[in-house]
């Protein structure tokens, strides 16, 4: 999904900067799936993801003047979206972790029939991501869903490549453990 390397959005950004708002709709349309998806995977909540994704685009519009031509627009948007999600999680920290616990146990203490339907509807990936610490979740999403390379992720998160790799390795180990437990619990 690393397909926005081109700079063909530069003219669009320039037109937005000169006051043509309709051109911004083209940019939003082009990047909405990317931004919304990152927010959804980070927050595990469709409503919050919609809010944060919308806010990301509104902030990006307001700060478009500070976009550095020569860099990737997608990276810049990723950074804004990740920061919005971090802010949201910081504000909701306690509530989110309680929700996560409630959701995880919801599929365990039920009758076999209920458990079967529970398994069908539950998004295993999202539940596993919800259980990861925030910084591990970020790297797993950017590396394995958005399929970015370490260099680009380093630029987005403002972390060195080596530190990022350590984080990624630990995140993967933890993810593996969570998914294994989930499979065992589902059997």
């Amino acid at each position: 999904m690393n397909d926005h390397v081109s700079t063909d959005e530069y003219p669009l950004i320039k037109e937005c900067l000169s006051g043509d708002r309709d051109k911004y709709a083209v940019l939003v349309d082009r990047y909405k799936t990317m931004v919304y998806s990152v927010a959804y995977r980070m927050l595990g909540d469709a409503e919050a993801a919609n809010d944060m994704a919308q806010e990301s685009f509104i902030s990006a519009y307001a700060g478009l003047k500070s976009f550095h031509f020569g860099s990737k627009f997608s990276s810049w948007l990723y950074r804004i979206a990740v920061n919005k999600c971090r802010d949201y999680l910081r504000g909701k920290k306690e509530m989110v972790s309680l929700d996560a616990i409630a959701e995880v146990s919801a599929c365990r203490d039920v009758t076999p029939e209920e458990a079967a339907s529970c398994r069908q509807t539950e998004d295993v990936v999202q539940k596993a991501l919800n259980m990861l610490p925030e910084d591990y979740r970020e790297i797993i999403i950017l590396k394995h869903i958005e399929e970015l390379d370490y260099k680009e992720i380093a630029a987005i998160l403002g972390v060195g490549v080596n530190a990022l790799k350590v984080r990624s390795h630990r995140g993967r180990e933890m993810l593996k453990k969570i998914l294994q437990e989930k499979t065992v619990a589902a059997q």
Partner: protein
Amino acid sequence: MIKDKDILHKLLDGEGSPEERKKSESQVQADPALRKEYEDLARSLRTVKEGGRVPAPAFFTAEVMSKLPPRRVSYGERVREFFFRGRILRWNLASGLAAVGVVIITAALMLRLYNKPVETSSAHLQGESVIIVRLNFYAPQAARVAVAGDFNKWNVSANILSKKNGGIWTTELPLKPGVYTYMFIVDGKTWVTDPRAETYRDDGFGYNNSVLRIKT
């Protein structure tokens, strides 16, 4: 063991020269515990990858556009605005050569600045104080866009927009001077505030109606 795990992650990331990778691969193959570890890791990453991206809700773009801060009006636009509104005033007072002159000049300007169809001007001349307002709405994925407002008694099928190039929907409404509230209805069910509206007004249901002001 930590060093062995490093090998696994390097393999997962496809790092190292082909020779190094080959060496690591045979090392993993030779050790059952290491091989299981690698397979488990690879499987969990595959699961995440298959989960993939999540599509954004319908009308996401329109909602973002309706929430953008109001734009600053440039000097050039103010000049255009002056002519646009000035024209209506002149026609109301149209009673002499001077006024005709203004009409000709402003009509020429309008044609250049807005690329407006000529029949628009004739509509102006028929109903003295009726002017044609063009509404544009960006919704590339929509199958049908209508506009409802107090000018058509909020009838959702009275004014259907037609689709132009680039996902823009457009319609022209003959309106008398006044203040109107309206909203777009996408695919017959979703009500969307016009992101380009001059101002907004709370509709009492948690949404903002777009406000259109036509001065005399």
